[in-house]
């Protein structure tokens, strides 16, 4: 921070934490699970992942966790050394200089804009599905397929979520406990119902669990493997918040570690259970309820909840709607804060650093995020038949990119500080190096594959796959915006606000 002491101001207090309400083990797990929004994530990502790796879904869910964990260790090390609003942007700039730092920040922004549009799309689907289930009128669910109606509703959701974020309103502890509890209840119910139907022979596929599903080497090609890992990086995206909560947890010595391990265990078990349940129930064929059916892939619970849960399917609609609505609101905070930090350091125009005095929220940046995400969704809805699965695939790529940059920034930033300390070497060099390289390899592989117009849902623009345009095109756009920024405000790029290298104030 470049803040100079301000005349007349006596002192600034730094009081972290919540007074009496510090976070215990259960609270930390709830926070970790709430940030990955399992009901939303699974309904959006199960189908695309299955279409990439077939019945090796469980294997990918286990293997995909590894690079995420390795990178998260680096993320935590950077967060401890340089706690900063800009995260990837700031750390990238401090390690590699302003250009790479700027692009890392852009990758984070692009990922959040993609996830916002996907979240809103899922929320719209389930909104109409729930209305149709509640009224018994099947026609209402089909409204989601009507492009103008769909886009209009999506804009309403976006505007609402933007307004809530602008006002600085955030979910409370009680709300998070209820949301997470409800998701567990409904997803558990779904899994039990699916296995019951497999057992009594009423499931369309009715497969018994095959050990081969757990073999990652069984995935047909490296392309499929890379695509699967990119997607699983997306589904695990967010849990690492428990690693950076050190200061807020009770019993600071043991709780953060145990909270992280517990969260990992809970999430992996939950994801595996649902993956196995869906796989056994539906199989990967392209039948009406098969996971290979492109029509149901992009929002799998919308298609399966009815056949699996019967009249209680409306609970699944409520569950995903609540999960995606809560995430929609909390996801606005991420790009807004990143833009705030970038504006603060002069990497974006100064209005991005504007804070609403009344609500203490990054007002301008929040509105920009909403406008861009809404416009993006509206365009995509018109261009792509399967907008949800294409955005999810591109999103996985984008997360691989910016997490990869973050991990390598960690290695480069801490280089030369290992000096025989095995733990430091492991957490700030080996783990993030391997994790970061893996993510960047998967990013490149998916980028190359996605140039094929038949990639993903098969949407294309000018003979180039839509996923490529979303993933690589958006990064290319970032280069252009960065060049414009350099031309107009070169200060940041000359290192005037963020200096490369380790400063003496870093612990």
């Amino acid at each position: 921070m470049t803040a100079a002491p301000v005349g007349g101001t006596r002192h600034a207090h730094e009081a972290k934490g919540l007074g009496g309400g510090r976070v215990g083990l259960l609270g930390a797990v709830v926070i970790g699970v709430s940030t990955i929004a399992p009901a939303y994530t699974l309904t959006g990502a199960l189908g695309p992942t299955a279409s990439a790796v077939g019945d090796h879904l469980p294997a990918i869910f286990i293997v995909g966790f590894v690079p995420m964990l390795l990178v998260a260790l680096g993320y935590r090390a950077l967060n401890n050394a340089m706690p900063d609003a800009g995260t990837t942007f700031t750390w990238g700039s401090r390690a590699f200089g302003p250009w790479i730092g700027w692009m890392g920040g852009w990758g984070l922004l692009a990922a959040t804009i993609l996830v916002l549009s996907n979240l809103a799309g899922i929320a719209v689907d389930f909104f109409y599905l729930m209305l149709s289930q509640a009224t018994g009128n099947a026609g209402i669910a089909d409204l989601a397929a009507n492009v103008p109606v769909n886009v209009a509703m999506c804009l309403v959701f976006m505007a609402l979520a933007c307004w809530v974020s602008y006002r600085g309103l955030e979910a409370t502890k009680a709300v998070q406990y209820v949301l997470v509890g409800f998701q567990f209840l409904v997803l558990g119910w779904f899994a039990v119902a699916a296995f019951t139907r497999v057992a009594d022979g009423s499931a369309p596929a009715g497969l018994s669990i095959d050990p081969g599903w757990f073999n990652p080497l069984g995935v047909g090609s490296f392309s499929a493997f890379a695509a699967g890992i990119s997607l699983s990086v997306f589904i695990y995206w967010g849990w690492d918040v428990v690693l950076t909560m050190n200061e807020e947890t009770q019993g600071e010595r043991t709780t953060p570690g145990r909270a992280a391990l517990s969260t990992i265990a809970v999430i992996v078990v939950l994801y595996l259970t649902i993956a196995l349940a869906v796989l056994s129930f539906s199989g990967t064929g392209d039948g009406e309820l098969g996971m290979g059916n492109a029509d149901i892939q992009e929002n799998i619970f919308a298609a399966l909840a009815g056949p699996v849960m019967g009249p209680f399917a409306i609970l699944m609609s409520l569950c995903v709607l609540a999960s995606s609505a809560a995430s929609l609101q909390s996801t606005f905070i991420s790009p807004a804060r990143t833009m705030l930090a970038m504006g603060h350091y002069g990497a974006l125009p100064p209005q991005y650093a504007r804070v609403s005095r009344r609500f203490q929220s990054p007002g301008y940046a929040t509105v920009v995020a909403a406008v861009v995400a809404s416009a993006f969704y509206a365009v995509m809805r018109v261009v792509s038949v399967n907008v949800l699965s294409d955005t999810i695939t591109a999103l996985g790529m984008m997360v691989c990119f910016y997490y990869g940059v973050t991990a390598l920034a960690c290695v480069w930033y801490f280089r030369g500080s290992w000096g025989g300390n095995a733990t430091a070497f492991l957490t700030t060099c080996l783990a993030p190096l391997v994790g970061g390289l893996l993510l960047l390899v998967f990013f490149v592989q998916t980028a190359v594959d996605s140039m094929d117009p038949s990639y993903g849902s098969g949407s294309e623009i000018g003979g180039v796959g839509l996923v490529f345009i979303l993933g690589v095109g958006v990064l290319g756009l970032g280069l252009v915006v960065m060049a414009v920024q350099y031309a107009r405000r070169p200060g940041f790029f000359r290192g005037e606000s963020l200096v490369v290298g380790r400063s003496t104030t870093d612990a």
Partner: protein
Amino acid sequence: MSAATTTGRPRYVVAYDGGDRGRDALRWSAVLARSLDVGLDVVVVVRSDDPFSGVYPPVGDVTGVIAEQARGWADEALASLGAGVDARADVRTAGSVAEGLLDAATETGAAAVVVGADGGVNPLGVGTVARTLLHASPVPVVLVPRRETPERVDHLYVAVGTRPGAAAVLAEAWQAAARTGLPLHVVNLVEVDENSGADPDAVGRVRALVEEVRSRSATARVDVEMGRGRTVAEAVGSIDWAAGGLLVLGSSRLAPGRQTFLGPTAARILRHVPVPVVVVPRDPAGEPAGSRS
């Protein structure tokens, strides 16, 4: 530790957020500072991150960036107060604005917290911060309206009923009047309708109360005024409020220990009265809270 003891001048914490309510608090605080010879601590509270907010994906804490801007707001506030007022500014981080204000009040040994009370569209009549303070503050809370400020505060009012506790509030206001030399108006606000009419004994009981306090208090200029109307708004409107008035209200008897808590009648009075209102904490020991400063 507090400046109050080193300079002997009581200090008020002023809730400033850089917005409209903060400016209300600032304008009125300047008047109070000039009229009552108090020092001001302009406090900007930056809300810290709630780990349960579930930001997705996780990003950094922006509290530092916001605090830096808040220091700019605090400087504007000091500049607008001018050199004639003994004022300092403080930017602090807390879980909620009210929490930060109360921490600041405890730390500085403040005699009161001044907050803009304009409720906007809020049906409860006062803003969230003011309402939270009213439910938790161990020191008097000064609620200021969104109105033109007078040159000085030159009349004290105290609203008393005839229930137990009225004597303590009256005694407190009395001491304030004696200390400042301002005239004290004891007002009794009662809703009357066509059926019940005014309770003929009420006037007598209030006068008896005044006499009782007079007998054990310092001298002060005191008069008694009766506000009557079909509604609280009418009862309040029947009093001829001086432009430089300041109304002292007691906390509800429901307030736990030494805390403020607004009773239902007091809340209605608050909505209609045209002058700033000081809500003093209930004090079980009988020691007037204001005398500490």
